[in-house]
């Protein structure tokens, strides 16, 4: 194994990203889908940080981007959870496949 560097980080983040996507595709529970989204967002954060660290350390663009993403992730999660709870009230379930009334 070699010295951990940019590519390692990119690998981790890409892996995380696609794991998240996989989760998003296959999880039927809305909350777990939301968790997958969080994984995706985290992988992006990792990307930004890695680039900022290894390639463009003289500016803080990546870092700030990460900060804002985290903030937005929180907001998004909050709204999403609110919606999910509302959905749960009306459907009595948070299985995504129980909410497929709108189609075709």
């Amino acid at each position, binding site marked *: 194994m070699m010295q951990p560097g940019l590519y390692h980080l990119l690998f981790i983040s890409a892996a995380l990203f696609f794991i998240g996507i996989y989760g*998003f*595709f*296959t999880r039927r529970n809305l909350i777990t*889908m939301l968790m997958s989204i969080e994984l995706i967002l985290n992988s992006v954060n990792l990307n930004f940080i890695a680039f900022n660290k290894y390639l463009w350390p003289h500016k803080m663009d990546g870092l700030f981007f990460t900060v804002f993403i985290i903030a937005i992730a929180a907001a998004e999660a909050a709204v999403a959870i609110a919606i999910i709870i509302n959905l749960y009230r009306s459907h009595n379930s948070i299985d*995504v*496949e129980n909410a497929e009334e709108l*189609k075709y």
Partner: protein
Amino acid sequence: MNLGLQIALIPLLPLAGFVLLGLFGRKYLKKSSGIIGTILLLASTVLALYTAYEYFFVYGKVAGAYQKFVPLSYTWLEFSKGVSIDMGILLDPISVMMLVVVTFVSLMVHIYSLGYMKGEERFPTYYSFLGLFTFSMLGLVISSNLFQIYIFWELVGVSSFLLIGYYYNKPSAVAACKKAFIVTRFADLGFLIGILILSYSSGTLDFNTLISTLTSSGTGQAKAVASTFLGASAVTWGAALVFIGGAGKSAMFPLHIWLPDAMEGPTPVSALIHAATMVVAGVFLVARLFPVFSITTPGVLEIVGWVGAISAIIAAIIACTQTDIKRVLAYSTMSQIGFMMFALGVSKYGGEAGLGYTASMFHLFTHAMFKALLFLGAGAVIHYIHSNEMKDMGGLRKYLPITHITFLIACLAIAGVPPFAGFFSKEEILLAAYHNNPAIYWIALFTSGLTAFYMFRLYFSIFWNKEHHPHGEKQSEGGFSMMIPLILLAIGAAAAGFIPFGKYVSTDGTVLESHFDLQFSALPVAVGLAGIFIAMWLYRKESERPGKLTASIYSIYKTAYNKFYIDEIYTFITKKIIFNLIGKPAAWFDKNVVDGLVNLTGKATAEVSEDIKKVQSGKVQQYAIYFLVGVIGLAVLFIYIWK
């Protein structure tokens, strides 16, 4: 009076009658329409006679030959430089002669109809149609332009259509008028294409220019002759096609089938249109273009001759078997026009050789008289007996004395018994044929015998034989108005032969001395008399002889009775081939294939739309999968394929 205007008035007066009676007749002129029409036509007739007098005796002859005059010409529609439809008047012997014939016969018919058509509901309409017809026919004969003649040709056709279909609520009349129009229309197709060819070859539509271009050897003719198609030169095709037009209108074999049916029209109409005037338009057309036919395309002229001869004999044979008197007369007309036609066919251009031409015109003239007379006489009989069938008639000579006498004169004229009109003209025709085409001569001789036979068969069946008619009470013979035309025409039929026709009408305008040869005349007269006697033997008294005779030659009789099945052949072609093999498939193709494709496009779109609705599954995860696949797809596409 201005000459152009004077002559223009001849057709325009009947036209005025048509417009006047057509627009206001039904409402305001119900009673007086007949009188109005007749008076207008009388004026026309007087003008025509005056014109004829002036032309033949005052100014027509210049330097020993009758000249062609164009006193009036108005550019009606110009196609391109030099090629235009001009409405004009062409004065030459035949057009002047035709003016006289048409106006005279038409006047007779107008007068006759005053009595014959009395009390008809559509009396004004009838007279307006007569006016239209007379106008068109007159326009036709004075045409100075090939297209002008076509225009009036069509108008004549439509007025014939209207008059045949006058009894519009009779299905047979409707069928007949349709048939007449369509068959002649089919022939006119040939005429039209012929016009196109001739006009393109000669670069003009004007008769005089056209004839001189095509007959005098020069660049025009050379060009017209040079371009060939299927071995024949353009002008040959043109002339032949024009002749088809003429043949259609003149009821030449095999386009004659409409004529007998046309007898569904009122009898005076048959007299006017289908005996005396319109049906000779084809003859007139060939005569009009005679220089082209005889000089440039002698081959076509030969065809003309043969078509005429064949029509003459076929019609005569059929006429012997028919029982409807108007049909007999119709076939007789066809036969006589055949005579005229082959007379042209055996003629040559210029001088003595042009005898056939003169004879043809002469026969046209005399035929108009006696055939109109025959029809009007038949009309009087039908008027009296209310039937067309021979078997309902017989012994009428006592009841219809004037009709009887005039009818007899006409029969003698048509049979070629001297000194009646028909004798002279037919004699000339036979003479011309004898000199130029012996085969046709023998056919014609036989036909003239047949003519005498069937005419007298008719005569004896109507006026002698046994009395059949159911009408017990004695009716009058018909009014004054019906008798006058009969008498006038009888005079014409009896005396017209003595007109020295060759002096006035010849191929090149010069005088053609007619000479009678007693030796030559003997045979035709004998044949004619033989025909008459056979008819007398068979039909003067009621006997079983006709029945036996027909039985002995039954198959021939049957064939002839059924008009050689030509109608059936036509029916087969139209119904089975045109309707079933072309029309129906075309309609089917349109509905199912062309339209089907359009509908298929619509259906396919709807189908696809239905099929792909699964994509919109309502599953948010699937949406995301599509999303990712789309991204990957685009990325691969643009990274690796579309750099």
